[in-house]
């Protein structure tokens, strides 16, 4: 397993139904990545604004970590984990 830090702001299509955020797809490196599965979600409440983290498996099989900043509602692609 190799985790590559990306830390780039990305455009994410998300579902906000039922008071919970669920990423559906995002654009990275000019490609639309569809979220096949949300593996885990956690909230980091350190700091003034919460940060919502999501570990997702995209359709290609890679596992990506997305972050929604509660301060400015900007989505970040934190990392991509690749199978070696």
């Amino acid at each position: 397993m190799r985790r590559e830090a990306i830390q780039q702001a990305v455009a994410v299509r998300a579902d906000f139904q039922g008071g919970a955020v669920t990423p559906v797809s995002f654009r990275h490196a000019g490609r639309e990545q569809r979220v096949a599965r949300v593996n885990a979600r956690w909230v980091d409440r350190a700091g003034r604004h919460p940060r919502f983290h999501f570990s997702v498996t995209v359709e290609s099989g890679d596992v990506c970590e997305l972050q929604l900043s509660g301060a400015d509602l900007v989505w970040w692609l934190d990392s991509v984990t690749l199978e070696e």
Partner: protein
Amino acid sequence: MGTKLHSPRHGDDPHGRPTFEPVARAAAPGGAHDASRSSATNHTAPVHAEQGAAVRETGQAMESGSGVTAGDGIAGIAEAAGVPRPGAGSGSAGAEGRSRDSEPRESQGPAKRGSASARARTMRAPSGGGAPSAPAEPAIAPPPGERTVLHVDIDAFFAAIEQQRDPRLKGRPVIVGAGVIASCSYEARAFGLKAGMPLSEARRLCPEAVILEGHAQAYRCFAEEIFARCRALAPAVETYLDEAYCDLTGTERLHADLLDAVGSFQRGVREAAGLTVTCGIGPNRMLAKLIGKTVKPDGLARIGAAEADEFLRGRPLEQLAGVGPAHARTLRSMNLHTIGDLRALPVEVLESLFGASGRLFHGRCRGRDTAPVNEREIPLSISRETSFHRDTADRLEIEGMLEYLVGRACRAARELGIRARTVGVRLRYGDGEGAARERSLRMPSDADPVALAHALDLLRALFTRRVALHRVGVTLSSFVPAAGEQGALFDEREAGRRAALYRAFDRVRGAYGHGVLVSGRALHLKGRLAEDPHGFVLRTPSLTK
């Protein structure tokens, strides 16, 4: 008597009628009836058709098929933990969820009476008897004056989170750690791996293991989610990195059925965080933790004070709280191998061997532990440490890291409103040798420069070998409340200005992350270490004990 349940679930019968089980929980060791203890060990609810909750708990044990049934008593628990049952042959029933011979208590009404075989049956309530006609009593009420402590332990914490974050790791041996194993999955434990083992040895034992450095901040988020649920369950909760003690004393009316409430808590954790927790309920912290260990992972067990004696007797010495490898070696050299053996030593002998701890051991080996569950408004210590990505002898890098760690620890102290009287530094060289030293401050302080000056002095005194460092850490301890400290007469103005400056730093860091302000030597780390919104990524989880 000790009750052990796996994967708690509701046990109503498929036809919607409540099931109930006329089982006496308090069985004497080996299954003999001990009527004289029944009032002191009354964990059995009066069994009526109306009291579905009381019955469900027993029904779960019967249906789970993997735990010891309520009627197993202490012998069942001990067997499940690998301790031979006194007087039981090799062909005994084992801990497979089968009911054992134990006489019911006469005082608990006709519904409880009957032969062992009758108790082993799951009985159905008469039709129409499912609706409660009387207010339900607490299903398991501890005897008056007995405490109820719940120990919650997150199973294979770091590794379980990593397996959740990346489903490709599920079913594979996963190790989290840098230098040594901080946590490993149950698949890795099958290869003999355990926390604290050097990674080199782990690789040798399990070459296919996936080794991850871990992400302490994410782990803390998951832990906070679980601890918040603990606080909803109990009025007093004491938390650690991956475990918590909850004082449930006096909540019998709040949680009509304590085992049900804890089972529901476990399900809630599984749904919300995707993690499993093992819960042990006992009359004190030590027993709650020990009984929980017998049902790991994802188990739930309960023990009463009256069962402690039998439960502890045959267990290895190392399981007694406070007995580490060194103490265990001393005791084994005296031909003492079990907790029961330790009872032969008078308190004076234990005190002469182990000092103040000896008196504690004297009580603990008899199941007595008076340590309270407290919120620890003032922690014992705050540690921040990390291993370097590559062993280093570069003074600038080492001192920069120390300054950064001191800043993190002092900020944690300021947030808690406490000041440290003692600063300690810990080193570990690349060859595995370690060194540690502490120093008391003239005045308690939470200011970075004060703690840093002492930490740097300690580092220079400790770092004397011509070997690269693998890890460095700083510990603040012996805290006093910041408000209760008497200031020095002449540097009051300077201290006040400095405190205001650091309060401002903390506000900025609180809003934008610790890494937004980096000072002095820590600037040397910029570009060398990975950063996230919390600052430089530390490779060892930060601890506040």
